[in-house]
């Protein structure tokens, strides 16, 4: 059952990932990206990373995607404003496809040398929280500063200059 669910979510993630970069309408791409994020959250649950699955849905599928959809609708692009998908950079298609193949073979080769999974604690909120507020307290606080700087920076960037 777990394997079946894993392959379902894996296929969903990869297919919606490909749909994200092939849709011309950014709104459709954003919705497929939400689907990919949910599929990844499902994979996280199957890999015992429960806390990350919850954060994935809340932060990625929630906050970040709302930001994307907000900007897409704010810009209100018509069909004429959208750049074409395929560009003259077709040679990059070959470069990307061959790089992808190399990566997959690398992953398969790496997989043959993977050790057996070690039994360990599941990624539950309590276990992650202990690390986050223990050994990783300083990076956690720096993250807060980073987010503050990002907020100020995006307000400055998007601010309309008054003449």
């Amino acid at each position, binding site marked *: 059952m*777990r394997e079946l669910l894993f*392959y379902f979510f894996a296929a969903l993630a*990869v297919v919606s*990932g*490909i749909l*994200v*970069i092939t849709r011309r309408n*950014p709104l459709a*791409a954003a919705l497929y*990206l939400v689907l*990919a994020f949910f599929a*990844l959250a499902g*994979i996280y649950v199957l*890999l015992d*990373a429960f806390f*990350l699955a919850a*954060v*994935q849905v809340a*932060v*990625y599928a929630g*906050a*970040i995607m709302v*930001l*994307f959809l907000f*900007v897409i609708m704010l*810009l209100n*692009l018509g069909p004429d404003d959208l*750049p074409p998908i395929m560009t003259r*950079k077709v040679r*990059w*298609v070959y470069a*990307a496809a061959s*790089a*992808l193949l190399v*990566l*997959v073979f*690398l*992953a*398969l080769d790496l*997989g*043959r040398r*993977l*050790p057996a*999974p*070690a039994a*360990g*604690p599941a*990624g539950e909120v309590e276990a*992650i929280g202990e*690390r986050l507020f223990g050994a990783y307290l300083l990076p956690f606080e720096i*993250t807060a500063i*980073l987010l503050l700087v*990002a*907020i100020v*920076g*995006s*307000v*400055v*960037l*998007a601010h309309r200059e008054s003449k």
Partner: protein
Amino acid sequence: MIDLNHALVVAFLLFGTGVAGVLLRRNAIVVFMSIELMLNAVNLALVTFSRLRGDLDAQVLCFFVMAVAAAEAAIGLGLVIALFRRHESIDLDRATLLRS
């Protein structure tokens, strides 16, 4: 038992998809979505290795990656809005201000 090797292949495929999106697309918003896709692929690889080693430190790193992704999305979309104000377009090929 889930084959962790296959989880790794999924992560690599998603990362490759993100790279292809950044290289091929000219729509600035879709390029940012592709970057998010790449960050998610890295997260999946981290979770896979965390499961493999029975060690939760990689999942904490994942949490930080998500925080950085949120900051990056905020800044990036601010840039997209600024770009649109300047060029009335989000076509990245038209953003040539720094080209000499």
